[in-house]
């Protein structure tokens, strides 16, 4: 079996016959100096200006992109060095949003939850500059994570729309417009992040409808992934298989794969980007442990449908831990590929019949 959409990211001269694409969800710990640069930039008494801060962000993006390369990832991201928070970043770039101050998430953790005060509109591009910069900083394929419209709607105050579904679909059209521009700029791998779906699983239908808007007129070869984390997957599976995406990126390591069986019946028909390292544990899992985790994925899909990735963004980990997890993850993936090549792994997954 081959999987053209996934194989377009197979590096030239890949060492094994099997290819388990390795990538990340997106965010990565910011170097301390970058946070310090931001503080200087925000300090009106300091001469560190917008150009200086831009330069710092460029340096940070280049650095982390290369750190991803060094870890051996097949598809890299810039670690979202330019983004502050997954809703705020986009809300600042979309017409119709307004900010009224921080709100509590838990304890003393707050976020500037924005309000939608008028119809949302596309203004300037959100991510094309970020993508072009990252793509120029590496020879490897670059993935672009975008916060999905359902999460953008759900994690905002809605003052302007009669219901949140309407807002979600309007935002989906804007995401679609942005993806068109990204594709024009050369992007081939887009990941829609919908963490809100895990918390309100009954809303999978509107997320599916939004995805139809998102992929409208986007060429087939562009890989579209959907990232969901922290939830009861049995409430959204198998319904999500109807979503028009190539890949589902799921957090499973954190729960020690206790939800794995959910995806065994009915058959998982999309590609599975399996979380194989836990982003909430600040210890680097051993290569052997991660190999075992990767093999869990082979219980759900055959090797050609498997992608290997951390559970979620790694930005809250110490940087050396984040790096260690990725490096070990890549090594583990290559080892599992070699074992697959050698026929050493008993594939529990029942392959689709030959006439499929």
């Amino acid at each position, binding site marked *: 079996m081959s999987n053209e959409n996934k194989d377009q990211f197979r590096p030239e001269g890949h060492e094994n016959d099997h290819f388990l694409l390795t990538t990340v969800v997106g965010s990565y710990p910011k170097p301390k100096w970058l946070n310090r640069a931001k503080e200087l930039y925000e300090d009106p008494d300091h001469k560190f200006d917008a150009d200086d801060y831009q330069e710092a962000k460029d340096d940070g993006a280049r650095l982390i992109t290369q750190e991803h390369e060094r870890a051996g990832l097949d598809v890299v991201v810039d670690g979202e060095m330019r983004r502050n928070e997954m809703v705020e970043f986009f809300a600042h770039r979309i017409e119709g949003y307004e900010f*009224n*101050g*921080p*709100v*509590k*998430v*838990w*304890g*003393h*953790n*707050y976020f500037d*939850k924005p*309000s939608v005060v008028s119809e949302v509109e596309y203004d300037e591009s959100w991510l094309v500059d970020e993508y072009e910069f990252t793509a120029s900083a590496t020879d490897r394929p670059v993935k672009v994570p975008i916060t999905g419209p359902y999460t953008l709607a*759900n*994690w905002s*105050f*809605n*003052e302007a729309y009669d219901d949140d579904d309407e807002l979600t679909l309007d935002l989906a059209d804007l995401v679609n417009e942005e993806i068109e521009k990204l594709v024009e700029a050369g992007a081939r791998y887009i990941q829609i992040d919908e963490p*809100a779906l895990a*918390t*309100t699983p009954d809303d999978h239908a509107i997320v599916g409808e939004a995805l139809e808007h998102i992929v409208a007129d986007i060429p087939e070869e562009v890989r579209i992934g959907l990232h969901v984390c922290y939830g009861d997957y049995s409430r959204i599976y198998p319904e999500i298989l109807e979503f028009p995406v190539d890949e589902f990126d799921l957090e499973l390591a954190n729960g020690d794969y206790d939800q794995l069986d959910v995806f065994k019946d009915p058959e998982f028909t999309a590609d599975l980007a399996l979380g194989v390292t836990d982003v909430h544990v600040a210890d680097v899992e051993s290569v052997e442990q991660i190999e075992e985790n990767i093999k869990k994925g082979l219980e759900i899909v055959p090797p050609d449908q498997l992608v290997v990735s951390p559970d979620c963004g790694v930005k809250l980990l110490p940087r050396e831990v984040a790096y260690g997890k990725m490096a070990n993850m890549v090594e583990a993936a290559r080892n599992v590929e070699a074992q697959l090549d050698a026929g050493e792994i008993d594939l529990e997954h029942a392959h689709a019949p030959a006439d499929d």
Partner: protein
Amino acid sequence: MTEYVSTTPGCYPLPDWAKDDLSDLKGHQKHDLIGGDEREEIVTVYEEAREELIGVQQEAGLDRIVEGQLRWDDMIAHPLAVHDAVETRGIVRYYDNNNFYREPVVSGELDFSGDVASELEAAADLVDDGLQAVLPGPYSLADLATDEQYGDEADFLAAIADFLAGEVDAFPDVETLFLLEPSLVESAPDDGLDERASEAIDQVAAATDADVVVQPYWGALEEKVYAHLLDADVEAVGFDFVADQDQNLYNIQEYGATDDVSLGLADGQNTLVEDPEAIRDRVDWVFDQLPVSTFETVYLTTNTETFYLPYAKHEEKLAVLAEAAELAEVTAA
């Protein structure tokens, strides 16, 4: 004549300066959350913030003044989260919101704490008139907690009710006690438990001479739950008319209501600030739908706590409620 009373269910957002100061002083992790034994600098920030928020309510002209529950890092699970017989474990989701609290696990005898009473004592020094206490209702508090002590659902609920009654007993004089009961909607009690939930509320209410308002929210109560709740000896049952109008109206039409009612008409979870006239019109609309509408007291409130809102929007909402109650009073007269 009906008296219109503007109030809120408490659990306010911290002023932004206090968010910053407390972040710095306490930290951002699970073990940094309030434990009931906070050090002097932290106590001082909370005192200043409490004074500010009481001032904001008085300025707005609210008829009932709450302490603000600013220390309630775990929202309405707070009274257990700071209790010595309770262990706080992982961070868990607060109903269907993007908010989290520490799971309180009751692992010992729930004896007297006095934490909420001391907050109210502090507030009482600043409020001459109309002080309102806020507590989780026993059913919701039991629902948010995990029991490793009492063993049985009914015994646990009874223990929580005992505990809350003991806390109420230690309160300074208050005009009104709001018991927040979102779990009566969000995880409605089954047959048998619905009756016990009502008895538990009754027990807590019996511990005070204040008027007791039971405020369920995020929808309407199931019929049977509502019918049982009316058996509790409380002055008012509340209705979240922001989340659900039809079922709430149906419940009142079908089963009647308490002599006083509390109407959640301003949205505690949306930054869109209602016009006072619009709130007043909603009051009229509700009463137009009812065959008999002679209530002694009608509380006008946000449907939920207001910590979901940015601070400035929260302030605006309070002013709107105060003004709406005045408008309603005028119309009624």
